[in-house]
Each structure stands twice: as structure tokens, then as C-alpha cells.
């Protein structure tokens, strides 16, 4: 929970943050911590079960100057929200 998985899709600048089970604002905090040391262009998908994140992740991207890419439902009722760092 709240872990960071850099091993997803080797070779591509894409990481996944597992924020399932966390309530807002914790998924956003996990996302921001993951984003801290990553290069521009990297994509981060944060997987959430708290549906407030569907609003909060795009709002975070807008407020911090990153780009919201989109959302996708995952197996098990969670949603993966993807941002591209700038």
C-alpha cells in the first residue's frame, strides 16, 4: 500500500503508484512524493480506490504545472489516473 513500483514496463518512463485503500489527500501526497525526483516526460499512474482522486489528481496536475493524461478503470474497482510530468 502506498508503495512505488519502478519495474513497470522496462524501458519506458512510466511508473505506477499503488494508492489503493488510501483516502484523500493521501493518494495525492503519494503521487507528489513519487513525482519529486523524476524527469520531465515521465508518466505516473496512481491507482486509487478513493474516487475523490478522480477530481483531485487532475486538480493536482493543474496546480503543480503537470499534465493530466487520463483515467482507466482497473480490475477490482480501482481507477488508474495518469499524469505526465513537465
Amino acid at each position, binding site marked *: 500500500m502506498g508503495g512505488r513500483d519502478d519495474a513497470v514496463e522496462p524501458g519506458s518512463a512510466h511508473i505506477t503508484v499503488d494508492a489503493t485503500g488510501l483516502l*484523500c*489527500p*493521501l493518494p*495525492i*501526497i503519494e503521487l*507528489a*512524493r513519487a*513525482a*519529486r525526483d523524476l524527469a520531465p516526460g515521465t508518466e505516473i499512474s496512481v491507482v486509487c480506490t478513493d*474516487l*475523490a482522486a478522480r*477530481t*483531485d489528481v*487532475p*486538480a*493536482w496536475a*493543474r*496546480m*503543480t504545472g503537470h499534465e493530466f493524461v487520463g483515467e482507466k478503470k482497473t480490475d477490482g474497482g480501482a481507477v488508474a489516473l495518469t499524469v505526465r510530468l513537465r
Partner: protein
Amino acid sequence: MTNRTLDAFQSGLADGWADPTRLHTESRRARQLLDSAREAIAEEIGAQAEHTHLTPSPHLGLERVIAGVYAARRGRDRIVASSVERDATLHAADYVCGGALTLVGVDHHGHLDLDAFAGELEVPDVALAAVQHGNHEIGTLQRLDAVAERAAAARVPLLVDATASIGHVEPPEYWDALVANPADWGGPAGLGVVALRPRTRWLPVWPEGDDWAPGGVNVPAVLAAAVALQERREQLEATSVRLARLVDTIRAAAASWPGVEVVGDPDSRLPHIVTFSCLYVDGEALLTSLDRAGIAVGSGSACTTSSLEPSRVLASIGALTHGNVRLGLHPGVTEADVDRLLALLPREIEQLRREARAPEIG
């Protein structure tokens, strides 16, 4: 409530205790008090007394007016509403039309998408449109002249929820049905006001014979509400200018804090409401710490704050749904109260971010 309002309430208890629907002397006196109070309220909100109804709550008023206007529009089954209406409006509307409720979105300030609204009304199956005057969460005032123009063009009656605005700004001009909340203008709780235009068709839905106040009206509360509204309106301009200036100060300060976003229209808004969202902050925790500090500085209730559950209004405008602070300034709030709050808030926000191990905001 002010002293004048309390006095009115007390004289209502002394002289207006009887059932105004009966015929003996005390009842006639209660009836007279009720009628003159209704007239006073109607005049202040720009309605006609005979089409102004008192309900046991604004909530019930919304339900009954939605059900009654809907019933009078036989053959049309849809209701169209803005996505930032109160839950009470949307729940009642959805129930009354059996789920045939269409929500129209808003822009980032919370203004109704007028083209989409007009588009929904083009299909001739809409019984009723509901668009609020001022938003209770973010303060934005809708452009009701433009909204009403589109509703009138489609011949759809427009319900305007003015429960957050009357008593704080001039009452809205453009509506076919109007709902107001006396508690919001310094009157007693447990009372609602519904006004209809003479042209607005409405049918009773319930069998009691009185859809608006089944079981009777609380006469002392109506008297107090009338006096409170007159008092508010006498001071409306001075109060709203002063509070709007304090809100400007709060908006400017909050916007300068890192990771804080002020929401709602900066200009076309209720004068006394300001809302902002703080990145990485748990809203509940922030309110608890403010509450503690409020007691520590001993300023009583300078502001009323309320935390927002993940809010439909904030989601509709694309704002953060966490870390929200909504301040509703009552007329007694001073510049010193605001200064104290503005000194305290950034420290508390930073403290909570540290506790949550949130990253620095660059």
C-alpha cells in the same frame, strides 16, 4: 439573531400563539400578524404576498414547489438543473421526475454552461428548470438574466434557489418560482419561504389541503424572519461592501500561499463566502486546529467554517476536493478577526503538510 429579531420573536410568542386558521379573537390576531409578516417578506424578496408561502423548512419548500410545478406540467417529464444545485434540490427533483433529471455542467468559476442549458431545453419534454442564485459552497452568483432568457424562450418555468443569497445581496429578479431561507438572513431556523409568480402554474400534490405548511405555520418564527430581513436589507449595502472587502483580503492572501487555490467567481459572488483548497491537507484536521485556535484567541464565532465532504460542487468546477476551507463571514466579523485568521492559517497548513510528510511545493 439580533435584539430586534429576538424582540419580534417574543412578541410573536405573546400575541401570535393561537392557530391562525381559527376564528376566535386570538386566532384572528395571529392571522393578522402572520399576514403582515408575510407581506413584509414578500415585499423584501420582490414577490406578491398572496403568492408567497411559508414552509416548515427551505428543504420542504424546495420539495413541494418542485413537486407542485412538475404536477402542473402534465405530459412533460424531465427536469433540468445545474450540477451545482443543493443536494435537497437534486434529490427532490430526481425523486419527483423518477430519475429523468438532467444535470448541466458549469465552468471553472461555477457558472452554468448556457449553451448546454438551452440545448437541453430545446427538447419539449422539460417540466421544470432549476438554477440557483448564489452558490452556498463557492459563492458564485449565476447570471440569472441570461438563464431566465433561455428558460423563457423554451417556455420552461425556472425555479431559483436563493437560499444562500437573499439577505446578502439584492434578491434575484428573474424567476418563476423562488425559495429562500430565513435562517440565512439572521432569522430563526425551521422556516422556509417559497414565492411563485402569478403566472406560474402549480398544483397541490398532497391530500392535507395545505401543501406548504401541513399542520400549520410557526407564527412567531415568521414575525422574527420578517424583522430580521428588514434589518438586513436596511444595512445590506454597508454590510455587503464591508464583507466583500474582507473576503477580497482573504482571497488575495490565500492565493499567495503555496499550493492553495481560491475557488468561485472573484467578482460576481456572494459578499460573505470564501472557499479555498489546500494541497496535501486533510480538511477535517485543518478545521479542528482552527477550532482549537478560535477558542484560544477567544473571539467566539468570528467565522463559521465547515469542512466539505468530497463535494459535487467542487468536483463540478474541477477543484481539489480535499483540504477545503469555507468561510462564511457574518456581519459582526471585524478586520482584526480576519487578520488573526490570516496569520494563523498558513502556519496550520504548513504544520499539517509536515505531519503528512507531504513534499515541498516548489
